[in-house]
């Protein structure tokens, strides 16, 4: 049992490591792909060769980053099999399809047209090359779409039923999976956050060029494109973020409660703008959950339900079985303790079904199947030892959410200011302090981006699939030593690759200060 838990924890750590490294590179790929497509469109429409030079400059940086995104992504796809083999069987009938579609539709499009993008300037017409750049951007978006459909299904599993004869879940409604409301919202939220990050990157690097008083025209032109993309991105990110909160309130209320550090909810629940969690707080101990807070009255009720007086359940409420239905009405459901009992009864029913099937006892099979169907909703809870195991890590979820929102708010102001400066108050573009605010925004946006995924994934714990399969039942049969070795292997390898990318990027950007971006052949 000890080794099982060690395997679980090390496998979680490994997936978190590989996913976080992957997400360092992917949003820049998403954002820059759109920005260079826009820049190349301007070139083709205006026939101004200077825009071609500018496009090629950002394309070079895109290529450097793209390679690392591809490298880190490979491991993730196969990690579902290597480290989470039970998961692969138990839900693979549903989960495998989006991954396969991602490969067929998106990866081939990216890999084919990216070759045209980099090497086809002289081999294809202007129009075809531009189409290839847009198709690369489209391929990247399609890739994001399908993987986010898969991830959204982990948050809100729909479109399936359990087949006791196969001991697994099987898909029965593809469109429910593909059009999962959580998926649609998540896709736009993730992609527009990539536009935001790409926009900050372009504005930041352009500001550095302005600070160096190099390629001033190219930098100002790039800054405008980056700022417009970034502003559109952050506005849409905030809007879809609001949608995300409403989704989470409906389908993952425990995640929302953890995001807020909320243990006992009420009608007209305030939103904690910022606070310090009481790290000693445990459920039902009567202690305050948050020691110091700045809160917005009724804010959480508005965020979660778009209704200032609605009830938002806390962790203890949910454990007790007090929740909110789809209409926003407070209802009594089944307490988590009862869910565990029912879950174990469901597992017993499955065991009985299996034994009856071995004996060929059709009547007993039917009886067990009926009981299983009644109780299947809480099957996953049967793996838990106590209700408290269903609580995600509160502190990590709470602080990550705040980091994401606060930086997101800053970025909205940032892009608005940059656009104002770029069009109306252009003398500010010569100020060093403006340059350095923009440059220092680059690491900030990455912190914001990572924080968002931490909320999404840590807030779902202990479930790999919400309410269906907890982490300890999703694992592979490997020793914790093996996973520890591969964990450290990836940690070292990806860190070395990150250092390599940053070094090459900085050198490439530094070199641009000494060359003519608009006309690199000069």
């Amino acid at each position, binding site marked *: 049992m000890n080794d099982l838990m060690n395997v679980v924890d090390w496998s979680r750590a490994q997936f978190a490591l590989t996913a976080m490294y992957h997400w360092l590179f992917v949003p820049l790929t998403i954002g820059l792909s759109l920005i260079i497509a826009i820049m190349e469109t301007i070139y083709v429409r205006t026939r101004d060769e200077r825009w071609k030079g500018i496009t090629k400059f950002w394309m070079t940086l895109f290529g450097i980053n793209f390679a690392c995104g591809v490298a880190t992504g490979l491991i993730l796809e196969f990690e579902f*099999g290597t480290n989470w083999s039970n998961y692969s069987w138990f839900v*693979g009938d549903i989960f495998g399809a989006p991954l396969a579609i991602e490969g*067929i539709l998106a990866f081939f499009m990216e890999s084919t047209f990216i070759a045209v993008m980099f090497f086809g300037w002289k081999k294809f017409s202007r129009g075809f090359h531009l189409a290839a750049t847009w198709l690369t951007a489209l391929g990247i978006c399609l890739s994001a779409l399908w993987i986010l459909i898969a991830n959204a299904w982990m948050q809100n599993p729909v479109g399936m039923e359990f087949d006791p004869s196969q*001991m697994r879940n099987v898909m029965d409604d593809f469109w429910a999976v593909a059009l999962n409301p959580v998926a649609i919202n998540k896709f736009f939220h993730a992609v527009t956050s990539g536009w935001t990050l790409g926009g900050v990157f372009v504005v930041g690097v352009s500001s550095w060029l302005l600070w160096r008083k190099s390629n001033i025209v190219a930098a100002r032109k790039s800054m405008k494109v980056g700022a417009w993309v970034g502003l559109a991105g952050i506005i849409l990110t905030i809007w879809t973020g609001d949608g995300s909160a409403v989704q989470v309130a409906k389908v993952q209320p425990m995640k929302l409660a953890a995001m807020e550090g909320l243990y006992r909810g009420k009608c007209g629940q305030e939103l904690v703008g910022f606070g310090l969690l009481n790290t000693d707080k445990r459920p039902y101990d009567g202690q305050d959950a948050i020691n110091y807070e700045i809160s917005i009255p009724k804010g959480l009720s508005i965020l979660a339900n778009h209704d200032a007086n609605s009830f938002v359940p806390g962790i203890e409420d949910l454990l007790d079985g007090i929740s909110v239905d789809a209409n926003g009405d407070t209802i009594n459901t089944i307490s988590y303790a009862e869910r565990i009992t029912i879950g174990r009864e469901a597992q017993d029913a499955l065991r009985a079904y299996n034994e009856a099937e071995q004996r060929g006892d059709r009547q007993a099979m039917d009886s067990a199947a009926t009981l299983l169907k009644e109780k299947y909703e809480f099957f996953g809870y049967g793996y838990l030892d106590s209700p408290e195991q269903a609580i995600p890590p509160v502190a990590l979820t709470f602080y990550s959410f705040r980091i994401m929102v606060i930086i997101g708010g800053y970025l909205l102001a940032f892009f608005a200011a940059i656009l104002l400066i770029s069009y109306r108050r252009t003398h500010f573009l010569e100020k060093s302090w403006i340059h350095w605010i923009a440059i220092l925004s680059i690491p900030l946006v990455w912190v914001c981006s990572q924080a968002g995924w931490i909320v999404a994934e840590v807030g779902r714990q202990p479930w790999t699939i919400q309410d269906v399969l907890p982490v300890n039942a999703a694992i592979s049969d490997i020793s914790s030593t093996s996973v520890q070795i591969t964990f450290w292997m990836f940690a070292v390898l990806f860190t070395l690759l990150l250092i*390599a990318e940053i070094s090459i990027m900085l050198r490439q950007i530094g070199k641009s200060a000494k060359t003519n971006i608009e006309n690199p052949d000069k």
Partner: protein
Amino acid sequence: MELATLQQYWWLIISVLGALLVFMLFIQGGQSLLYCTRSEAARQLMVNSLGRKWELTFTILVTFGGAFFASFPLFYSTSFGGAYWLWMLILVSFVLQAVSYEFRRKRGNIYGTATYDIFLMANGLVGCILLGVAVGTFFFGGEFTVAKVNIINGASPVISTWSDSHGWDAITDWRCLLLGLTVFFLARTQASLYFINNISDARHEGVTSRIKVLFNGGFFAILFICFVLVLLTSQGVRQQPDGTMVQVQNIYLGNLTSTWWWAAIFTIGTVMVLYAIIRTGFSSTYRKGIWWSGTGTIMVVIVLFWLAGYNSTSYLPSVTDIQSSLTLANSSSSLFTLTVMTWVSILVPFVIAYIAYVWHKMDKTPLTEAELEKESHTY
């Protein structure tokens, strides 16, 4: 459509993807040849010739894995989760490849060009051999058991368990290694054919050396014959109509001879590969060998997959518990999922069409050093 028909169809798709992957491993083969020349300019030509296609192999590998996951999730669960070290080594070698082309000559490369070239060579060696070993397990099996009922054992819920070697058993199985080495030398042979077709620079004869075709092709031919002999005399596992598994002697020979056109495709494909090697090796002007060899490779590998999976043959036999062996029937996705994926597969011809179009346009004229000097983006 019936479930059995869809299972057969999806094994066909897997076979085609597997065959395309083996063909595209010429990229890895070419990487393993990087230090067969002392000329840096020649190495540059080779890297840039390969580099314009490196992502295709990568993408086919990823799609192969994804398609396997979607269509035969029990294989994905059992093989990846069980032969852990085999798959991890393959994946790490491809991770190293993914960054090497882009980073190797960029300013600010703190690890040096040689480091990335070594990564490329490592991927060429490890990627080919270990992918061959992985496919070898389709015939020679692995040390695993599957017990789906374990899912309700909270203390030990894992349904498929592999021996403690976790993949090292496959890597050290001489039969799997034989296939791995066969794939490796095939990849090098095809890379040599590809360079002759794709690079045109008389100053770098070493790159387009026809002796390399004969040398690597010779090794490939010998290993291939040995592998085929071993395969056709090996026993395997077949699923009976009642679902039980039985061992069958010379199962793959039986599969090959049971359907005449399988044997015909296999033979024609083999002849095409040998024709490409011999014609290119002994001609000073012939440059189209890669197309004969590539087509032949695809045909042979497709048939090998068919031998592994059709006729109720177990495509992942268990040497520990024969009843745990995987077949198309007991490891596939549901009828619903396979139907959905079949609709998606209608897009595959369009994907192949645009890839072929772009490949044709990009490779219309062979690559020269002069062209590289004019390019703004090189590896």
